[in-house]
Structure formats: C-alpha cells, structure tokens
C-alpha cells in the first residue's frame, strides 16, 4: 500500500477519532438546534428555572419557608417587601416558589431517569429477543401499562407513608411501560435492517448488535421521548401533591396548590398564592415540550440527508 499514508496523521488513535467525531456531531446538532426559535425559547425558560432551583439558598433564605419562623402576615397581598405576597402561614410565596422549584424539578428528573432506564432496557430486550423471553417481557410491560397511577399512589402513601421517594416510585413505575413499548417497536424494525445483518456477518454477537447498532439508532427516539416524560412526570408530581399524597414536610408547587386550595385561596381571591405555582408548572412543561420538538428535528435531518 502507499507508504505515503504513514504520515504522523496515521498515528491518530481510534479514541481521538471518536472524540473528534462526537465534538463534530454536537457542534452540528447545536447549530441545527439554534435555528429553532421555539426550541431556544424553551431552553431559555428551562435554564432560568434550573438556575433558580440550584441557587435557591442564595435567592431566598431557608427560614422563609419554615412555618414556625415565617416572617410575614397571613395571606398578605403582594407588596414591595413580598413581591408575591404571603401564604396562610405568613411565608413569602416567592420564596416558596423558588424552593418548590427544586422539588418539582428533582422529582421530575429523577423519576424520568428511572423510567427511561427501565423502559429502554425492557424495550430493547423484548424487541430483540424472540421466543418466550421477549414475549414474557412484553406481557410484563403490558401489565404495568394498565396500572393506574392514582390508586397506586394512594395505596403506597397509605402503606409506606407520604414521602418524595414514594412519589418518584409511583411515577417511575407507571411511566416506563410507554417508553418500553415505543422502544420495542423501534427495535423490532431496526433489527431487520441490512446493517444488522452485516454486523452478524462480520461476527458480531448479541451484545454487540444491541449495543453498537440497535441502541444508537434507538437513542433519538429515547431523547425525544425523555423530554415528554419529564413534562409528564412534573405534572404527575404536581397532581399527586395537590391531592395531598406528597411529602408534607417539603414544599413543591403541587403542595402549594394543595395548600392554597385547602385554605380557600380561590374563594378569597388570593390569586398570588395559587396562580404562580400553576403558571410555573405550565412554563416548565411547555419548555420541555418545545425543547423536545426541536430535538426531534435536530436528530432526524441526518437520516433525511441520505441520498
């Protein structure tokens, strides 16, 4: 072969190439994403909320949200001291909102991670393995799919007590099947593609086929699905907390809504108590949805570009 090819460049290692490729992919992906105004808006909103959640101790003192050491009066209107007024215990609503962001986002993200991991694994396995193994996993998925989340949450809350962990558990258990079904059908179709057969011809075993070929081609769908799942998880947490199944010692937007409801904030017109948490939930869910839509477009064009 041409000896000229053994220039220093030929000494580039496979790892360096892989990194170069990843950087290039990310750069291209970001350039594509930037063109979606809606996606950028969503990303902006999300960044704001994440920053607020992370910087909560700096933005609002933790004493503000303690019921016993609440600084303000009961259900005060918004004023220059308390921008969003206070709740029925005298705690500034703005502080509650900031600290509540932590819980809502944390629960949403954690539950989603659990759901994604389980869902992807089960979906891949049930799609790849024919025979009784795959069929069994499929049945299990279907069984979990029909479990209603509300009764499950109530049962868990009754049996194990009310806690964040239970909420995360409930959301995780009830949302992974949808992902698994999606991943399974993707796996079924990818499995038949010629490049899988080529991998087999080259000598690839099952784990190589799944890990190097099926999973990377299924990941785009996983990402798009993830953003949707986070949105649903946050909504679910809000719902469960609103229904009183959340952790009473923690503040989340859902518990705020629950609290507002029980003290009749709606009838007394204390809008500063129940509207801000509701709007925050809407904004966060919207941001994830917008990001998810933009991500779908970013991930797809590479396949569309095939001649």
């Amino acid at each position, binding site marked *: *072969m*041409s000896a*000229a*090819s*053994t220039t220093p*460049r*030929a*000494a*580039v*290692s*496979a790892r360096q*190439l892989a990194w*170069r*490729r990843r950087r*290039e992919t990310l750069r291209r992906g970001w350039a594509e994403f930037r063109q979606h105004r809606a996606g950028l808006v969503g990303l902006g909103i999300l960044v704001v909320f994440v920053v607020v959640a992370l910087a909560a101790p700096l933005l609002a003192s933790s004493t503000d949200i303690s019921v016993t050491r609440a600084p303000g009066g009961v259900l005060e209107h918004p004023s220059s001291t308390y921008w969003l007024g206070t709740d029925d215990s005298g705690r500034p609503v703005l502080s509650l909102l900031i600290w509540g962001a932590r819980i809502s986002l944390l629960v949403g993200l954690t539950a989603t991670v659990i759901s994604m991991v389980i869902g992807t694994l089960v979906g891949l396995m049930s799609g790849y393995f024919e025979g009784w193994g795959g069929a069994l996993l499929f049945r299990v998925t279907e069984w979990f799919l029909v479990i209603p989340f509300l009764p499950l949450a109530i049962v868990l809350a009754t049996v194990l007590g009310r806690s964040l962990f239970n909420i995360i558990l409930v959301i995780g258990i009830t949302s992974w099947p949808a992902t698994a079904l999606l991943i399974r059908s993707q796996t079924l179709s990818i499995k038949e*593609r*010629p*490049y899988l*057969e*080529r*991998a*087999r*011809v*080259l*000598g*690839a*075993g099952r784990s*190589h086929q799944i890990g*190097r*070929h099926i999973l*990377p*081609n299924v990941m785009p769908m996983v990402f798009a699905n993830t953003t949707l799942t986070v949105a649903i998880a946050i909504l679910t947490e809000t719902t469960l907390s609103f229904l009183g199944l959340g952790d009473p010692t923690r503040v989340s937007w859902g518990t705020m809504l629950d609290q507002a409801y029980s003290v009749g904030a709606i009838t007394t017109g204390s809008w500063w108590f129940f509207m801000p948490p509701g709007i925050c939930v809407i904004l966060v869910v919207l941001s994830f949805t917008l990001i998810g839509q933009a991500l779908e477009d970013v991930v797809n064009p*590479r*396949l569309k*570009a*095939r*001649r």
Partner: protein
Amino acid sequence: MTAATPTGTPATEQRPTLEANGLAVEFTTRSGAVARALDDVDVSVRPGEILALVGESGSGKTTLARTLIGLERPAAGEVRWDGAGLDYSARGLKELRRRVQMVLQDASSSLNPRHTVYDSVAEGLRLHRLVDRDPEGRSEAELVARALASAGLRPPESLFLRYPHELSGGQRQRVLIAGALALQPELLIADEPVSSLDASIRGEILALLLKLREEMGLGVLVVTHDLGLAWNIADRIAVMYLGRVVESGRTEDVLAAPQHPYTQALLSVVPEIEQLEPVVLTGEIPDPTRIPGGCRFHPRCPALADGSAEAAGVAAACAGSPLPVLPAETVGHQVACHLVAARQDG
C-alpha cells in the same frame, strides 16, 4: 493465507474449499406452505477463483450465498468449510466469518447511518481482536487505512470521519468491501455487488474484485442476475433455476455454448446478443411452494413447447422423471436436462 495462485487453474487440493453438499433450505410461508428455496444443491468455491451464481429472483442464489456463510440453517445436506462441516455455535460461526466474508446487496442500507466510515471498517477488526493479533504490530487506524486503500479509496484518512450518506454509491460499496477485507478473508461472497450502482462505475468495482483475486489470492462467489457481469469476471458459472443448479462449468463453455434451454433463453434476451434468437419465456418463475414435478423447468421449457423434446422421445421424462443433481466439483460443462442427456447418448 495462501500465496497468490495462478488464476483459473483447477484444484490444488491444499486450498480450503467452501462447499455445499446436497443443500436444501426451506421457508415456511405465512399460509403454512413450505417453500423449498434450495432443493439439493452441490456447489464449491475456493480461494483464487471466481464463481458466479446466476439466476433470476426465486432461483435460490441469494439463499445459497446466505446459507454458505451460516446465516441460514439447511433443512438437509451440509455446508463444509476447509474439510469440516460448519460449526453453528457462536464461536464456530465467528471463526468461519474470520475467513469467509460477505458483502451484502445495496451498500446504502448495509452501512449503519450513525457510524462513520472508520467505525464501519474497524468493526470487524474489533470483533475479532485483529489489532492485538497483528504480526506487524500495526495500530487499528493503520489497519483501517490499509483496508480502505485496498478497496481503492485513497487517501484513506480523508474518509475516516465521513458518514455513509455523504458518500457516493460507488464509495459506499467500496467501504463495504473494505470492511470485509479488513479481516483478510480467504473467500468473499458478493451479493449483487454492482446492481444498485451507476453503469459507468460498475467496471471499477468489478476490476477491484479481479485485482483482489490477483494480488491477494482471494476467492469470490458472486451472486448476480447479470450474465454480462459473469462474462466480465467469473472463471466458472452455475446457473440456477427454482432451487437447483441447471447448468454449470467454465464461463466460456456455458455462456458461449449454452446447452440448457433455460440458459439459452436467458442468454438470448440479453440485449445486443446477435447469435441467439430471442426466446422470451412466458409467465414467471413459479411459486417455490409448488415446484413442478419432473424437470422443474418443464412448464416453461421452449424445447418441450416446440416439440423437440417429443421428437427426442424425452417429453414424458421431462414431465415425470426428476433430474440428477449436478456435482459441485467440475472442470467440465454439466447440464441437468433430459433432452441434452438424450442427445449426448444418441
């Protein structure tokens, strides 16, 4: 690895052979009927020679290629490599595929769109840990570059980070070939290597296959429907119809003087063939779930239709008696046809 051997010379028995003995492969259709895609086939190919499997869709040629590399299990008969039957365990198949490789049809869908050219070519190297085993201690990148260069892609480094959709059809095909060559196989099975490519670049890919035979002593089994391709590069040819080999021998013998009515018909409709009157067969290849009795070609055979079979007294045999299976090892020109057999005797 064998040293470069003279092309087209008959068997020197040290070279490992990939052969099919009495191979039969069946598929069950949705309605429950059993389709015999391959019905008792003997074929062999060894490094240093190019064998073309020619036939139309439904002839079983692709099934034969896939069974030879272990992607399908035979219902009867066996595949033998290097003197031993195929070991269908994961390890056995992997060992086989280290030395016998396959280039699939349609390069555009045979390459993972998310893998770069480098990844696709290195895949085989990684699976078989060839970088560790390399006697000259070359790195993975060097081996990948070497494979790409032998497939005619120069300079190889410029393609490392490209994706399949950024390449032309010809380049993709070469990448597929490079991926197979990276394992330094002794035999290559190529399924329709140029049918999806533009006409003006077909020649280059075919020339590449010839060059690999010359320089590396590679043996090639080409599956194709294109008689012109067989004429261009094949030493031997086996014509298949509905799961059986109907005629085989050296390419010059079979294509210059075809004996079987099916081969004659196929050749006659190749455009611009002057010496044969076009014989356009009616209908299409029958359903492999209902293979005709006797000679499986007899319902469409022009010799039966125009009375020559009757005149030779074999018409009853054509419809009723099955034909013997052509043996794989052949230097001579062999035909599975009652009429031809009768004429040779008479």
